[in-house]
């Protein structure tokens, strides 16, 4: 687990009550800040990350050295302009980039592993609200998130009415679908089937990397579109180790370029992510159903909100479909909340919110500003 820079890491003063009934303490939140906080403390743009994201939105990732995951969107003179806004991004609880999670030390000084309590999306935003309290930020100018980040943004608006002036939800849903739960379960089973799994108590030895890599490979497919995969790889074959070009191995090497790509994605992921965190965070997403505590009526979840909303979907996203976004929009309309909605056209599938999708920058900039 990476060391936590004390400048950008904060321990909440109080124990955190969880939806499960358990309590988590102490709770450390690792976060990043880009841009200056105004004297009135009213220019904060809060960014929530997706399943495998982290707080490194616009600065290099400490483990991989790669640019931040939303570097193209956040920075000086970028759509979310850090010359004007103070962007705060946190690592979720249950994560593995400095916030308290299953790899953190439990009460006995050993990593929690599976002793870590199951957390929910609502628990995650409760922790973030606790961070904002400590930072003395009553209200954020905008709460922004894609995918699981969008779930957090909606939960933040619903659970803390009045604390977000604007809520921007990209490629997300108000509830996790059966199909998406099923994909998550495949990933979790791959991790738990790994010989190194050891019931989650693997921190002293080899980690269940093979299982985690398979989980990532399966999930990665769901982030892309068939058209995108076909265009990028088609049925093209890899160059063989002996230099022969595009020949089949008549075995089970990564013959196809798409296989090689997925294996690379899988193994790269294990260098920056903890298998237990993958289990906990996917479980938090699976449990998410914003209407559940409002008698099944999503509009009631937004009944007390004072935020303006913008919901964006992507036409090739089959993980969090346009229909899921429309479901949110209808509920917001029923609740009388000011809402915008647009389905953008993109070849990138679910990843459309992270990439250069035409129109996305203008929508984000226009809504946030």
């Amino acid at each position, binding site marked *: 687990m990476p060391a936590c820079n004390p400048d950008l890491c904060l321990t909440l003063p109080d124990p955190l009550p969880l939806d499960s009934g358990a309590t988590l303490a102490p709770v450390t939140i690792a976060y990043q800040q880009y841009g200056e906080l105004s004297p009135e403390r009213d220019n904060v743009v809060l960014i929530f990350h997706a399943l495998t994201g982290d707080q490194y939105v616009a600065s290099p990732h400490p483990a991989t050295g790669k640019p931040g995951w939303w570097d193209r969107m956040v920075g000086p003179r970028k759509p979310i302009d850090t010359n004007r806004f103070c962007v705060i991004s946190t690592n979720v609880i249950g994560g593995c980039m400095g916030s308290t999670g299953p790899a953190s030390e439990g009460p006995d000084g050993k990593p929690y592993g599976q002793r870590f309590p199951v957390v929910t999306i609502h628990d995650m935003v409760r922790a973030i609200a606790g961070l904002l309290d400590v930072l003395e930020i009553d209200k954020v100018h905008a709460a922004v998130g894609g995918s699981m980040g969008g779930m957090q943004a909606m939960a933040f608006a619903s659970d803390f009415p009045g604390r977000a002036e604007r809520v921007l939800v990209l490629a997300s849903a108000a509830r996790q679908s059966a199909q998406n739960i099923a994909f998550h379960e495949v990933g979790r089973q791959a991790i738990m089937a790994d010989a190194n799994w050891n019931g989650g108590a693997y921190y002293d030895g080899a980690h269940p990397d093979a299982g985690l890599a398979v989980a990532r490979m399966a999930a990665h497919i769901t982030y892309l579109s068939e058209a995108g995969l076909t265009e990028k790889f088609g049925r093209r074959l890899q160059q063989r180790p002996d230099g022969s070009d595009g020949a089949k191995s008549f075995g089970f090497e990564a013959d196809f370029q798409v296989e090689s790509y997925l294996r690379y994605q899988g193994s790269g992921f294990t260098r920056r992510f903890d298998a237990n965190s993958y289990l906990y965070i996917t479980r938090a997403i699976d449990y998410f159903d914003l209407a559940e505590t409002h008698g099944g009526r999503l509009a009631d979840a937004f009944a007390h909100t004072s935020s303006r909303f913008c919901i964006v979907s992507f036409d090739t996203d089959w993980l969090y479909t346009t229909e899921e976004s429309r479901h949110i929009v209808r509920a917001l309309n029923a609740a009388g909340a*000011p809402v*915008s*909605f647009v389905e953008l056209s993109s070849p990138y599938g679910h990843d459309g919110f992270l990439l250069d999708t035409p129109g996305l920058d*203008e*929508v984000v900039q*226009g*809504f946030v500003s």
Partner: protein
Amino acid sequence: MSTLPDLRPDLAAIAGTIPDGSRVLDIGCGEGTLLAALAEHKGIDARGLEIDPERVATCVSRGLSVVQGDAEADLVHYPDDAFDYAILGQTIQMVDRPAEVIDALLRVGRSAFVSFPNFAHWRMRVALGLGGRMPVTPALPESWHATGNIRNLTVVDFKELVSDRGARIERSWYFAKGREIGEFGANLRAEFALFLIGRG
């Protein structure tokens, strides 16, 4: 509030009629010209519905609350009485089921503005009656095979439809050559008509 900017005359009539502080839904709001004018000059936080995603993106980037959707598929999801005014600008002639759309407008809005090109304008009558061809005029600039106007109607037809649906006409405006004209002979003289209708 400051004076209204140079709006198309039907939009200017709408903006001039809606009282400050009203709740407004503009269906087919395009790039949000009317919404922006209502927000800027009347302090009205109006909402829009627009089918074209690029126009929606333009609206959102202007800070307007606009949902991608259309009158027939999406109005059904808005609650009763959600708005004081629903606006359907030059769209009624493009929908599959105009009668149901009128009902929906007066369900989500207490009143509704509806404007359309008048197919009984004398130019249309000349083109069809004497020329024997589907009219192509400044008001209806596309030929029959390219136009989205699948349900052309006249001032008289619209009045009849409103009456059939149990609604009533509160006000009407008629336009020719970009200017408002009087009601006299409107079904012959008006290129465009605008009605404010209410529940019967």
